[in-house]
């Protein structure tokens, strides 16, 4: 079992995509090593969707929700944070299962821009 102290890594605000990417990288690093990964959100005050999109939502590109539920444990997270987390997961499941529909239209264009 591994515990990731979110506040120590991103500070008291879990809001930005960059912060989310840091957490995602740590989760991926621990994924095969640990039976369970605890994400400890104690003392994290503010949450926003870009953070969860880049940390948890992005994991659903290669993993399914059942795997996430078995592996991840969210501790010390506020009700608001949990609601955002569930909203992001719901959107991410749709996003990654929607590869043939309009969500992907123009993706090549966007890649060119980047």
């Amino acid at each position, binding site marked *: 079992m591994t515990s990731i102290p979110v506040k120590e890594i991103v500070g008291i*605000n879990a809001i*930005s995509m960059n912060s989310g990417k840091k957490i995602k990288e740590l989760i991926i690093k621990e994924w095969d090593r640990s039976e369970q990964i605890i994400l400890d959100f104690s003392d994290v005050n*503010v949450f926003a969707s870009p953070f969860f999109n*880049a940390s948890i939502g992005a994991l659903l590109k290669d993993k399914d929700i059942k795997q996430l539920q078995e592996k991840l444990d969210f501790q010390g997270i506020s*009700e608001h944070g949990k609601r955002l987390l569930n909203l992001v*997961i719901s959107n991410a499941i749709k996003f990654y299962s929607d590869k043939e529909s309009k969500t992907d239209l123009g993706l090549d*264009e966007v890649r060119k821009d980047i």
Partner: protein
Amino acid sequence: MARQNYNVFLPPIRDDVSGYNYLSKLAASIFEAPDNFYTFDFSRCSTISHNGLVVIGGLCNFLKQYETSSSMLKGLGLPSFFAKRKVGFNIDSINPRLMEKLKALGFWNFVNPDHGFIGSSDYIGYREHNTVLEDSEIVSHLQDNWLTDEKLSISELLKSEIVSSIYEIFVNAYGHGLKENPNNQSVISCGHYDPKEKQLSLSVLDFGGGIVNSVQRHVPIPHKEEAFNWALEIGNSTRTDSAPDIPRGLGFGILKEFISLNRGVLRVCSDSYMATVHDSGNYVTTKVDGCFFGTLVSITVNCDNKHYRLMSEANEKIPSYF
């Protein structure tokens, strides 16, 4: 074509439909003729709300940046001396109360410091932000300077939900504001707290080309109003703010939910459209008389701790994965 001088006689500008209509017309006129010089005349103006200040300040910012970048393009290599003359203010017959308000909101700090400057940084008011989003700077500023116990009395839970929602507005502004930003323009914000009504209002503006343009570049929706409405739906995004394989598109949905639970008001203006959310919790889209060539998001939030529910208390069903 010769440059001309124009006087812009500002009317009273409120956070209502007529205010947004006027601002959209003003923005369209100036965007169509950016080579001219403009003097904003306050003699007929008794009040200007946060939405008016971001648009007027944003237009001043646009004109100055336009002058600078167009002279650079012409190969002069130096900022044009015309840039200083691009924008003027006639404040001789300004209503003294309005003048005090503009000073207190820090409007002149950024737009013309000669007319008044406030030294402290903890005011709730007008700001021009860097062209790169400083996440923690904005959040710390909101928490430590805006939503302090001395200024307004709200629970920690509501405070964090307000900060989170405002952050989503800034992410949205920088998402498309930065992508289409040839003149290196700032994102502009203006906040205002009404202690009598216990309402906090905020407008955030970017002149990044607007929602319709952004949607139509990436999704085949030819009808402008449909393209505008598409962007407001939860899960829809043009993915202009980062890597294309990360899910997103929740900002406006989260804002809408927060505002309807809070019984506040949310307006999203872009191109020639304005979507408004009141108590019903649904967007109502109307056409405005002009065009914003960018995106203006305005919210009014109740801070009285009693007339609303928190997002964490919402009944709406989101699957509970964790």
